């Protein structure tokens, strides 16, 4: 019995790390631009798809594939920012959500037209062979993804807090006009943020591809990642990761002990309760009203 629960928690951690890694990209963009990028899942898919083609058809090595994909996807991120965000900076939030969703649709349908194949397998960064710790089964890949998610959030927190560029980004998110007045190039910051977020998405895509497989619809993982980030607190990087991990564990436990088919319904109900009790997520900061 205990074994089942430990296993559920361990499996939930692996799932949760996927959410955390994907959710991080959402939060980075939100932090700097107060916008949601609804094409995030599609950027993730595009990264994995390009990686797959480079690796299996163009015979690139694993790490060179990784490097080339990240560079290409950074460009994609900048293009999305230019096309779907910058012309709409002053438009209502819903308009930006729709425009990024439209970009997502364009990416998804283009990939689907070019590759009618349903799914492909992308080689894992760490081994997929299971190993045992007591009654619990884990894979190196699952543990690796958790580690990378935790590492990424620490790296980004340090980046935002201690580098000039990171400080400039935080300043921009607080007040664009003021940031501009003190000499920060706001457009450049935006491009950079979207590039970083896209790179995060692509890296996550290639990391999780062996678990969820590469296909035009693999971006749906972003939806649950988004839920996880909200659960943790959308205005905090650590919140995104903790929320994602928690979501994975809670979801799996509910699946094992309560209901498997309705687990997402229970998860959404829990999310609403959490938001009512703590309107900024579990560890998010309350935003102060200014008159």
């Amino acid at each position, binding site marked *: 019995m205990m074994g*089942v629960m430990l*296993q*559920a928690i361990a*499996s*939930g951690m*692996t*799932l949760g790390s*996927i959410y955390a890694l994907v959710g991080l990209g959402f939060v980075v963009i939100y932090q700097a631009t107060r916008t949601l990028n609804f094409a995030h899942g599609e950027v993730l898919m595009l990264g994995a798809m390009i990686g797959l083609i480079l690796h299996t058809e163009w015979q690139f090595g694993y790490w060179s594939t990784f490097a080339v994909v990240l560079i290409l996807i950074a460009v994609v991120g900048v293009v999305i920012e230019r096309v779907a965000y910058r012309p709409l900076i002053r438009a209502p939030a819903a308009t930006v959500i729709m425009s990024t969703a439209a970009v997502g649709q364009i990416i998804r*349908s283009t990939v*689907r037209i070019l*590759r*009618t*194949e*349903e*799914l*492909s*397998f992308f080689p894992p960064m760490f081994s*997929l062979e*299971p190993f045992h710790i007591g009654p619990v*089964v884990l*894979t190196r890949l699952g543990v690796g993804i958790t580690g990378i998610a935790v590492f990424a959030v620490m790296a980004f927190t340090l980046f935002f807090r201690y580098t000039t560029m990171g400080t400039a980004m935080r300043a921009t998110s607080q007040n664009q006009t003021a940031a501009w007045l003190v000499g920060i190039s706001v457009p450049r910051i935006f491009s950079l943020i979207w590039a970083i977020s896209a790179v995060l998405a692509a890296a996550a895509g290639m990391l999780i591809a062996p*678990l*969820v*497989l590469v*296909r*035009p*619809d693999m971006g*749906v*993982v972003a939806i*649950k990642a988004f839920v996880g980030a909200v659960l943790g607190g959308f205005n905090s990087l650590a919140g995104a990761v903790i929320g994602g991990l928690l979501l*994975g564990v809670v*979801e*799996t*436990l*509910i*699946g*094992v002990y309560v209901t*498997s*088919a309705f*687990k*997402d319904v229970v998860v959404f109900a829990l999310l609403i309760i959490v938001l009512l009790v703590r309107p900024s997520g579990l560890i998010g900061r309350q935003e102060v009203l200014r008159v």
Partner: protein
Amino acid sequence: MRTRRDSIRPVLLGVILIVLVQVLGAFASPSAEQGVTDSEIALGMFAPLTGFLAPTGTPARDGAMVWISEVNARGGIYGRRIRLIAYDDAGSPTEAVAAVRRLLSQDHVFALVCGSASGPTLAAMDLIRETGVPFVSCITAHRGLFQPFSRNVFRIYANEIAQGRGLIDYVAGKKGQKRIAILYNSTDFGIGGYEIMSAYLKEKYRLDFVAAERYNVGDQDFSAQSLRIRQANPDSVILHAFAAEAGVIARQVRQLGILTPMYGGGGVPTPLFPRAAGNVGVGMVAVWVFPVFPESDAPPVEAYKKKALQYLFQSGFPVGRPSLYDMTGYIGADVTGEGVRRAGRNLTREGFIRALETLRDYVPGGGLGFPVTFSPKNHEGTDIVIMARLNGHLEWDVLPPE
């Protein structure tokens, strides 16, 4: 002063105007023919060509196109060339109804081929029954198509009842398993198969599934379901899922220490399963409803590929094709064509239906499908179900009947 945006706006307005004119043009009503002229037969198709079901619809459309191009290259049937009008329904019931209405009342097609996945097809069934348009279905295996019986609807491979019963007869009958667990998805395919199998298991073998777990399409992780199945301590597990997910599930099931034999429902024996499952999939036995595998080099497949490369894919096949749905599209178009041929020079819908009902052991698609037989009381062309097994080279073999 004209800014860049100012100069774009008239262009955009122009585009909108052109679109509107085109739309109104599309709505203008043509003649009231039933899709047959002296030189042409119009066939209609509604299928998911976009959305997550696109990997079923697009290949099926291509398969049908290969057959049509081939016939047209030979001069058509009785001098009539065949034209296929294919509309996307994105897998949505509402859109399927709209597409079928357009095919019937706007394009006045003679017959429908292929059809969509079950949900959209079922939504359009009222309209299809009402208008009596002949319909040769080749994507969905749902029982809603033949229960109740419709005179104008024909199917070309074993339906979901035959598939479900075939699998239970194999697992509970031939293999004598007693503690069977099942994991299925919440689509019509998954739930339909589960309902059929659990009823049949009870009726014939006096058994219940020891665990029946469901997941939703798009789920990334199946460990909760797997752990629940593990707690039920089964002696065999049936995965009634789409091939790709079945592969992921198989891997997780094995990882969590469930080492019992695994069986797969219809749709599992495609290359997607081993691609996702890897070596843990070896030994998997699953239902299959065609005499050949599209990824194999069996003579009918080779023949099909040659035609496809000649008529449709001059620059080579897309990755991962031909798939099972290329085959069904080709078979469906071929059966339709055989009906048209047998109906003779004076082609009517009634004549076409009667002609199809004369098919006896017709081998469709040059051997891609099992022989098809129709009669006035039976429009299920075949109920042949075979078992396939994943061998050590991660390829599917047909299990010889014992």
